[in-house]
C-alpha cells in the first residue's frame, strides 16, 4: 500500500527543458518553411548546379535529366547510355541511337506532346488566363550532363510546343 502511494506522487514529468528545445526547433523550422510546389529529389545521378539567379520557380511540366535517365513529372521516359567520345576518349552520357527520330527523342516527344495537349485543353476549359498554356517547362539537369544530350532534349521539347525553358538551379547564398 505504501509503495503504490509513492508511485502516484512521482507521476509528474518535468518537460520544461523539452519545451525549450521544441520552441527553438519550431522557430527554426518556421524560418525554413516554404510553400513552393517545385521540389527536387537530389541523388547521385542528379546534382543541380549553383547559380546567382534570383527568380523564384513556378509550377510547370517538370523534366528531370539525370545521368542515367529522363523523367517527366516523376515518370521515367527514356534510359540514357554511356558512349565513348571519339575525340577526347571520355565516357559521356548519350541518348541511345534507337530512341532518336531524326533530332527528336521519340519517346520523350510523345510524352511531352501529350502533356502539352492536356495543358491546352485545361487552359481552354478554365477561361482563366493564369492557367492558359504558355509552353513553360522546368528543366532539372545534372551539372555534369554534356550539352549534346541537353540539346536533344531542348529540341524535342521545342517540337512538343514547349518553348519557354526554366532551368532549375540551387540558389547561391
Amino acid at each position, binding site marked *: 500500500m505504501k509503495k503504490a502511494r509513492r508511485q502516484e506522487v512521482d507521476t509528474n514529468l518535468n*518537460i520544461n527543458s523539452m*519545451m525549450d528545445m521544441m520552441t527553438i526547433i519550431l522557430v527554426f523550422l518556421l524560418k525554413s518553411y*516554404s510553400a513552393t510546389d517545385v521540389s527536387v529529389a537530389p541523388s547521385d545521378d542528379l546534382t543541380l548546379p549553383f547559380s546567382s539567379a534570383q527568380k523564384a*520557380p513556378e509550377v510547370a511540366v517538370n523534366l528531370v535529366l539525370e545521368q542515367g535517365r529522363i523523367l517527366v513529372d516523376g515518370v521515367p521516359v527514356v534510359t540514357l547510355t554511356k558512349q565513348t567520345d571519339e575525340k577526347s576518349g571520355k565516357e559521356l552520357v548519350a541518348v541511345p541511337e534507337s530512341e532518336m527520330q531524326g533530332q527528336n527523342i521519340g519517346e520523350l516527344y510523345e510524352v511531352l506532346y501529350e502533356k502539352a495537349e492536356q495543358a491546352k485543353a485545361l487552359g481552354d476549359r478554365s477561361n482563366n488566363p493564369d492557367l492558359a498554356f504558355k509552353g513553360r517547362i522546368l528543366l532539372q539537369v545534372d551539372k555534369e550532363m554534356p550539352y549534346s544530350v541537353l540539346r536533344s532534349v*531542348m*529540341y524535342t521539347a521545342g517540337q512538343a510546343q514547349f518553348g519557354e*525553358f526554366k532551368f532549375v538551379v540551387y540558389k547561391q547564398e
Partner: protein
Amino acid sequence: MAVKRKAIEDPDLNLTPIMNLVTILIPFLIMAAQFVQLSVIDSTLPAIGPPQEVEPPKPDEKPPLQLSIALTGTGLTILGADSIIYPDGKPEFAEGEEKPPTLPCKSGGSCQNVEDYDWKTLREKLNLIKDEYPDDENVILVPNSDTQYEIIVRAMDTARDDPDADNRTLFPFVVVAGGAM
C-alpha cells in the same frame, strides 16, 4: 495565510496541451521545410543549325551587336564584338591554323573544371561591350557538344549581371544555340 499556502502547492504550469500541439507542428513543418533554396534561369528555344555568319561591320554606321560566347573545351570565345575586344585590331592567323579561344583556360590547354575557365576576364570584357551597347541585352551561348551543363549555367550567371559593379545588368536574355553540329 491560507491563500498563500495554496499558491505554493501548485507552482507547475500544465504544459501537456502545448506539448501536444508542438509535437504535431514539428513533423508538419519538417515536411514543408526546404533546406535548399531553388531558383530558375529563363531561356527560350534555341535556333538549331549552323552558327549564323556575322555580317562585316559597315564603316559609316554602328553595326547591331550580335554577341555570342562560344564555350569549348579549350576556353571561351567572344564572337560579334571584335572591335571592342581587340582595340588594336584582330590578331591574324595563318590559313588552316586553328584559332585559339579569346579567353583560354587558366591552366592552358583544355579546361579541367568550371573554375578553370576565365570568368573574371569574360565579365570585364562584357562590361566593356555593355559600355558600348547599353541598350543591348541579348547574348547567344554556343556550347560544344561535350560542354558540361554546369559551365553553361556559369556562363549565364556571368553574362547576367556584375555583382562587383553594384549588380549592373549586363546581358540577361540568354539563348542557348544549337552549337557546332
